[in-house]
């Protein structure tokens, strides 16, 4: 059983997945941030591979990605940082990035680097499901790397089931029709969509992301799914932070206190 399967076998609700961009705010902050997140009670780390052209991301993650690249972030260093994290932590780590990064690094070299360093799964929003089935599924399985596909309010039922079947890590439930970082409150039609998903008897654990930014939205997401993903809001916290660990501990505490 890999780290993600272990997590979901012992914990089925209120899963907290935090996204952070590797190499941001400073090049070597990644390890401290991940360890502080674990200490604060985060369940999964979604580690962003900064990309020059992040098509699905809003201003905040565009900014952190551009800053990380300007800091000198690159994939070899990212895998080194994951290795360093693994000396101290067994928290599940999911890499999020774009397909071109994986293609250029080399598919087999990339997957080996993932399994060697201790990455558990991938989120590649622009990897189509049919291409995954043809050219990625077997190789990722043999490297022990899971995958999460995204579904949105527009995703047809047929595609929903397919994404559910293929998502070996968890199903990434995009909460609204938007890019990342849209901090609005959850509306009625979104609740209906969450309810519809909850009724479908899907097999993969569901985590809701996009627009989750505070305790209220986190709790709403957790009512309808196994947990939630917070990205842009966490980057905003880091952006104004003077003491990363302190900022992280207090931010995560605001989500969890009842």
């Amino acid at each position, binding site marked *: 059983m890999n780290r993600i399967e272990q997590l979901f076998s012992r914990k089925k609700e209120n899963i907290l997945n935090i996204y952070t961009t590797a190499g941001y705010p400073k090049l070597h902050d990644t390890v401290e941030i991940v360890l502080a997140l674990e200490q604060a009670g985060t369940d999964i780390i979604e580690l962003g591979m900064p*990309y*020059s*052209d992040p*098509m*699905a991301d*809003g201003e905040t993650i*565009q900014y952190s990605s*551009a800053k990380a*690249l300007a800091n000198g972030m*690159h*994939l070899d260093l990212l895998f080194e940082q994951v290795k360093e994290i693994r000396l101290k932590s067994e928290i599940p780590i999911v890499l999020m990035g*774009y*397909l*071109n*990064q*994986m*293609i*250029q*690094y080399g598919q087999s070299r990339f997957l080996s680097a993932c399994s060697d360093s201790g990455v558990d799964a991938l989120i590649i*929003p*622009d*990897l*189509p499901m049919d*291409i995954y089935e043809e050219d990625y599924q077997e190789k990722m399985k043999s490297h022990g790397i899971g995958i999460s*596909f*995204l*579904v*949105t309010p*527009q*995703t*047809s039922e047929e*595609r929903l089931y397919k*994404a559910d079947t293929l998502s070996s890590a968890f199903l990434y439930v*995009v909460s609204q*029709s*938007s*890019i990342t970082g*849209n901090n609005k409150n959850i509306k009625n039609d979104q609740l209906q969509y969450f309810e519809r998903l909850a009724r479908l008897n899907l097999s993969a654990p569901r985590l809701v992301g996009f627009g989750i930014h505070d305790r209220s939205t986190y709790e709403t997401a957790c009512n309808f799914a196994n947990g939630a993903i917070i990205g842009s809001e966490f980057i905003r916290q880091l952006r104004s932070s003077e003491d990363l660990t302190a900022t992280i501990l207090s931010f995560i505490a605001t989500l969890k206190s009842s």
Partner: protein
Amino acid sequence: MSYEIDPRGYYGEYGGAYIPEMLHANIEELRSQYQEIMADPSFQKEYNTLLRNYVGRPSPLYLAPRLSAKHGGKIYLKREDLNHTGAHKINNTIGQILVAKRLHKTRIIAETGAGQHGVATATVCALMNLECVVYMGSTDIERQAPNVARMKMLGAKVRPATSGSQTLKDATNEAIRDWINNPHDTHYIIGSVVGPHPYPDMVAKFQAIISQETKQQLLEQEGRENPDYLLACVGGGSNAAGLVYHYLDQNDVKIILAEAAGKGVHSGHSAATSILGSLGIIHGSKTLLMQDKDGQIIEPYSISAGLDYPGIGPLLAHLISSKRAKVYSATDQEALEAAIELSRYEGIIPALETAHALAVLPHLNLKTDEIVVLNLSGRGDKDLDTYIDNIDTRSNFQ
């Protein structure tokens, strides 16, 4: 060798639709309907009527005598610069706005580099009374001020793209993000043969009117449909795709593409994708693009805002890698000189983009009876500031 798109949206190994799920419903709606819509007789009638009475087609095929005397051969110019709005771009926007109407869309978005596609989109939105938002890199907004003014005059909103190099690729990213945020009422009119399937195919088919007319016109003027050479500049590649479309299976017709070498292909300031690019994914399409070893997209450079795109349409990538097309590159300086030459020899001021194709003419070493059709893709009004600066600062242009 087939140059037709396959059912999954590939030309050879290039193309496809590498898009996030957030775009899937939009792209699928378009993909499942565009061929049927375009084949519909009422659509064809409306499209062709607008091209004739509104755009001013057919555009002339003009034998340029002094240019031919200078470079040898018989050089024909396909005068897309005489279209309404001053470039070939409107062939595509007329087609796509009619598709958008049939998909019941009420809001149009577009990206633009030089501003020609933005103007052509703003124009058809005014014509059809649809809301129009054009994304344009901040750098391009500065260097293409006349076209920004035109778009505003036509009622479009021009939104600056402030990320990255603040040029065409970033404007495209912003337009894609807008589409993700507005999945129901909006159609995205992509301006070139780039992006996810079905865009490269749909845009190529709308631009194919260029080669359809060329065949007819050359037959009338030369007694043959096929020239020896077709020559076009290429950024994303839409004017080139239109010029070559109906000639792809005619192997006696040589296809020559002109890329922007900027300050020199290997100067670090270039947009010569066929030489500097490698296989990857940009804007949802698998194609050749300029990138580093980690897949980060490299900012291209050209004096011409319409050619500084880091990728190339998948059809063009396929033509280049299968050696159906040959690529030459022209530097900023060569393009400027070629623009001034055409102005002085033929009384036609070309767009800076088109000037890159003109700059390739000396490389062809034309024999007296060889026929070239060069796509004069746009007029140079928008580039006058750049031209004047160079004429004023270099005495050999006086």
